[in-house]
Every structure is written in C-alpha cells, then in structure tokens.
C-alpha cells in the first residue's frame, strides 16, 4: 500500500472535548474514563472531504471533523492522504471537491529506479491559471472564428434590412460588420479567460494543496505530484493509470478520462532535465 508510513493524525474538538484519531483505524475519544469508540475502515460507509470539514459516515453514526480541529494544514493533508489510501482496500464511498493533483488511492508503492527526476515547488497561480486558459483556448479556438463570422453575417444582414446595402454604400458596411464580428469574438475570449481564471481560483481555494509545497517526481515507472509533507519516496502513479498529456511552455498537464489530474510545472525541475522528463512522458503516454 502506498503512503503506508504516514503517522496517524489526531484532531481535537475543544468545545466538546472529543479527540478524533485517523490512522490504521478511526477512533473517537470522548472525555471520561470510558474506552474510545473505534471503527475499522470496513465499518466506514462513506467519507466526504468538503471545503471546511471531513464527514465520516460509519456503521455507528456520522462524525464531522472540522478542518480547524487539525493543528496544521499538514495534518489535514495527512488525514486526507490516509483516508484516500484506504479507499483501495475498503471500497467506501468518497466524495471530494475537484483536486489539482491525483488522489492518493491512485498511487502504488514502486521502486522509482535510476532515471528519476525529482523537483519541489509551490504551484504558481499565474502559471496554472494560464494553463487553464490554454486548455480552454484549445477547445475555444475551433469555434471562436465561427462566432466571429456568424456575428459579421448577422450584422451585415441587420444593416441590409435596416438601411439597405447598395453598390454605393457596401464599402462602408462590410468593414463595420467585420469589426462587429471581431469585437464579439474578442469579448467572448475575454469572458472565457475570466471564467477559466475563476474556475482555477475556486479549485485552488477548495484544495489546500494549492498553497503547499509539492513534490514532483517523474520516472520510468510513473509520476508523482503530491504535497511534500505527505510524500514518501517510493509512491508513484503508474503511467498505466493515466491517458495522455499536454505540454505547454510552462507545464506538463496529465489527463485521465479527459480530465486534467496533474499539473507538473517545468520550473520545479532544473532546466536541463525538462527534456528528459518530456522524453519519459512521451515514451509512456500519448502526447496531444
């Protein structure tokens, strides 16, 4: 099992005097001499990691652990990693907000081998938002010229109906229609860019990994993009788990089921290694 060395994490509910321990089991210590209530992971029906809390639905009831009960963000990330590791073996339902990096359940403990590139960096908001926009542009560029052309024709038709285009005035109206189409296309482009940036911000706000230092690993066996406070040196997502990748000037974006599951910034690695990383990816994945 990947991430098997993670130490259990405790969270303290100061108001009610309850301590939750998430580890090999899920334990709830209440105040008093009574032994704790302990659930093994096969007794957990579902776990929901939402913006401000983690909810455990167990055979004995629901427990909600607020994010602020953890002593630090690192502890919260460790707790999430521990939960995600257990999904593979215990198959409980797991709900979570969209993430910037692969779930820990997709990792395997593998020997990375000799040709391994390791880098550490905090995900840059500008770079990642630019990647989001680039991905959107990929889709949008196909229809943007169509939108421009259609608006131009509609404008031309509208003018013709209103004023009537003749041999003498058509030289005025065609450029006006073309400009209307171009301006509309530009407006659409600006709006979608704003949407892409907002989308990235909403994901980044929900995923506290966006603000933490990330360890990026690329090797022949697989890759890793994982919070440095959680990462162990042998945990990798095998290449067989993902479908294809896109290379931009600043990032490698890895896809699974047509959804980006990992953003690997080039600047996390030494410049001279970027070529080697691209080669390993191209050898193992389709490049689009």
């Amino acid at each position: 099992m990947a991430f098997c060395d993670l130490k259990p994490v405790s969270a303290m509910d100061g108001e009610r005097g309850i301590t939750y321990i998430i580890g090999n089991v899920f334990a709830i210590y209440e105040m008093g001499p009574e032994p704790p209530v302990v659930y093994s992971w096969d007794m957990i029906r579902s776990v929901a990691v939402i913006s401000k809390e983690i909810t455990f639905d167990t055979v004995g009831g629901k427990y909600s652990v607020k994010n602020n009960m953890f002593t630090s963000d690192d502890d919260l990330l460790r707790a999430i990693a521990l939960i995600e590791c257990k999904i593979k073996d215990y198959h409980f339902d797991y709900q979570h907000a969209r993430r910037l990096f692969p779930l820990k359940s997709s990792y395997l403990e593998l020997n990375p081998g000799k040709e391994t590139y390791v880098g550490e960096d905090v995900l840059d908001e500008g770079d990642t938002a630019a990647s989001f926009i680039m991905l959107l542009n990929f889709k949008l560029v196909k229809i943007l010229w169509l939108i421009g052309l259609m608006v131009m024709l509609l404008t031309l038709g509208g003018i013709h109906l209103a004023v009537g285009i003749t041999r003498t005035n058509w030289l005025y109206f065609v450029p006006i229609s073309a400009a209307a189409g171009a301006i509309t296309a530009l407006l659409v482009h600006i709006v979608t860019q704003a949407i892409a940036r907002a989308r990235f911000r909403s994901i980044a706000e929900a995923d506290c990994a966006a603000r933490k230092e990330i360890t990026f690993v690329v090797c022949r066996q697989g890759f890793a993009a994982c919070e440095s406070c959680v990462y162990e040196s042998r945990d990798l997502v095998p290449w067989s788990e993902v479908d294809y990748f896109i290379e931009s000037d600043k990032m490698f974006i890895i896809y699974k089921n047509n959804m980006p599951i990992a953003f690997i910034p080039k600047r996390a690695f030494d410049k001279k290694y970027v070529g080697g990383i691209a080669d390993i990816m191209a050898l193992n994945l389709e490049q689009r």
Partner: protein
Amino acid sequence: MSVDIKTETVDFDGKSALLVTVKDGSCIIGTCSMGCVEQSGNLSARLRMFYIGSDPVLNLICPSRANKQSDKLVSFSPGFQGYDIKINDALTNSFNRLNNGESLGSGLRDVFGLLGDGVYTVYYSDYYPTDGNGNFYWGAYNISHEVHGTAEHNRAIGDREYRPCFLLPTQPMDYFAPRVKVGIDEQVKTRRVQGIAYHVSGLYSALLKGHHGSVFCVENNIPFRCAVIEKITEPYVERKPRPTVSAPPAGEVDPEAPNAAEQLDAEQTPAENPDDGIDNAGINGITGFRSPSVKIPLYAFPRDVLKQLIESRTEFKPPHFNIMAAKLLTTRRKSINNNAMPRSVLERAEQMPDCEMVESAYAIDELTDEQLNCLLRGEVECNGKLIVSPNFYSSIITACSFLQFKDPKRFVDFSIAIMESPELSAAHEYVARRVASQTSNSKVFNFFKTVSESNDVKYDKIHFIAQTYVRRLSQK
C-alpha cells in the same frame, strides 16, 4: 533516543495476556512493505520483508493486492549478508536469561529493545520445526513458493484465535554446522526454552534464536518450546450468531401466501455469503484488537497502551530501509561446505503434523461418530447443524485432517470407510495419500494389501498408492 519499554499483564474474560509496549523502538527486527512487485506484467502483488538489522531475511510476496486471505510466496532473501554481532549478542542474552528462569517480560527485554514501535504480546508455545508441509524448516524456503497457512486471515480457522506453530528460518541453510550442533546438544536437554520466535504471518513465525537446537530437538523428539513475540495490530469485531430461521419444507409452503416465492427461494438457495449467519445489527465500533493468539477487548487495555496502539502504524519502514532495499538486489556469496541435515531429522519432520491438520484442529471443536457417519452418507449437516462446511469434499478433507491430528485411531477407521465407499471416489486419492504418508499401522497395511491385490474398479484411484505403501513397509 532510548527505547521506552513497558510490560504489563491484562486480565479479561478469565484470560490473561502479557502486553509489551515499545516506544521509540530501534526497528532492528520487524517487517515492512517493499512495495509492488511485477508478476507477469501485473503490479497487483506486494512484497513484504522480514528484516534483522539492515539485512533482508525473508521475502513474502503477497498476491492479489496483499489480500489477507491469500497465502504468501515465501523465500529466504538472497540479499541476506549476516546480521550484526550486537544483535546476535542481544538475542543470546535474552535466550540465556529465559533459560536461567527469568520471566518473559524481563528475560526478553533486550529483544524488545530491537523491535519497532507498537504493542506486542509474548507467550510460550510449542512449535513444529517444519514448513507446515512435512519439510524441516531450515532450508525449506530457498526457492520462492506458496506456503499454505501464511494468510493473515485463515479461511479454515475463521475468526478464532490460534497459535502459530510453524517456523521460518532467519539463517541460511549453509550456517548449519554439525560441529556447532554437537556442542549444544547437551545444553538443549536441560533448556526450559528452545528458541525465540517472532510472528510473521498466519501460522508462521521467524525463529530468531535456536536453529541448531531445533535440529537436536527434532532428532530426539523433544518439544520445541519457544518464547513467541506477536504484534497486536488487527481490529476485530465479536459478532453474535443470528438466530436461525429455517425455511419450511417445500410441501409446507403455501403457494397462495404473499411471500411464497421468497420462502421457496430461501429453501432452494444455498448459503452464498459466509457472513450470512452473523448479526451485524447494533455494532458500534470494533470490539478490540487482536494478534493471532489473543483477542483483547478495548476495555481490557490500559488507556495509555490503547492510545499507543491506535496512534501507531501497523508496519513502517525502518530508518535503514534504503540499505535493505539495496541489499535486496544483491546476492550473498555463499560458503561452500559439505554439511547436510541429518536424515533422521528430515524423516521426523515428514511425520510431524502439517498445516491442514493444525488448521482443522483450530477450526473444529469436536467430531462425533454420528457426524462422521453423516459425512460418509454424503451429508454436510447432522441433526440440522452444519458439520464442517457447506462444501462436502472440503468437509471430508477437514474432517480427515482433524482426526489425523486429534485421534489417529478414528482417522484410520474413517479413512478406510471413505476408501471403501465408491460414492466418495473423488476423495479416495487424497485420503489414501494422507494415510500412506503418515500412518504405519497394521489396519492400514492390511487394507492397502487387499487393495493392491484386488482388481475392484472402486480402488482404481488408490491402487498405485496402495502398492507403493505395501512395498515400502514390506522392505522395512
């Protein structure tokens, strides 16, 4: 940082267990995960390693994503280089202290200092120095092979407690030296404890100390008593059996009744889920934690011990993991010698109970003559109660193993009755092999002699086994 060791005895439900809590342990002895290993282009198998110091000692390949019900492929690690003299000294000191009459808690203190963080239980138990399949344990794991009984959750034994009783060596076979054995033969006779074992998986423990002594014990039929260290990690739930509601016979089902179809279904559908008879209602958390030999309810644990148990990891990589991982890829240069295990030891090991016998002894409480007769009639139930399992041939095999272990006389009678019954021909070969390999008694000899001289078709499957058996015993 010094190791914090705390020992205390807990009493619960009329039983008691010695618990050892290790904090800031040095992780010199233990097991850890080595990750996924590729088998036929598939990454579903996991490699687990038992290590001593910075040496990989035993490789356990756990198939099916380390499914706890799957048996493991075990082999002695080729990367073993021979562990540090200090570790050997600590083991020898503890071994001597136990033999000088010290208690388990104080005698094994040096060994506890070598363990990783966690809660352990310690006890004495007799071991069969075999691989659970009739081979002497030392040298039985040179090649990686599936070892029956290494699964953490034994299907035959189920949720019951059991004591591991088979051994895995922690020294390679070429460490065996008759000269050393002769030197310790006299000591073995007077020892209270013959070895120190650390539980690894299922019915198997790694022998940390006492390899040469085990040879003498087998040679001279001396029980091989070991001090056993088991890590307590597994949560368990004590479920109450659900009161059985038997389906009415087909004739009594009212076809007009609203639930007639369900009643008929209940009668016709065999039990598919083994947990079907278990009441899951009212369960609020686990009952306690267990190791193979002991189940300790939560209330019996001292509060600090329980906290340590909950807050520690089942298995983790020791600080010297990278050295071990590097050694795993190397192969030890072996010394060349002409030392061979005494033939009598190998022969006696063959006669010792095997894994199936031990499993059946834990799985079944009792088998009455009435139940055996039901099995011989091809029934799996006796007076409405399941005898062994819903699978008939599995029941026959388990019953044979149980009788062979507990009551050899009834085993012979039952086996002969099976082989006499043409309806049970599918089990003939298995039963004949079991009888032939383990028993040399006149009843069996006479039966096999009759079989070997007979041309009856019903003996077709066991004819060759009978001839071999008769020839072997006649030569003796």
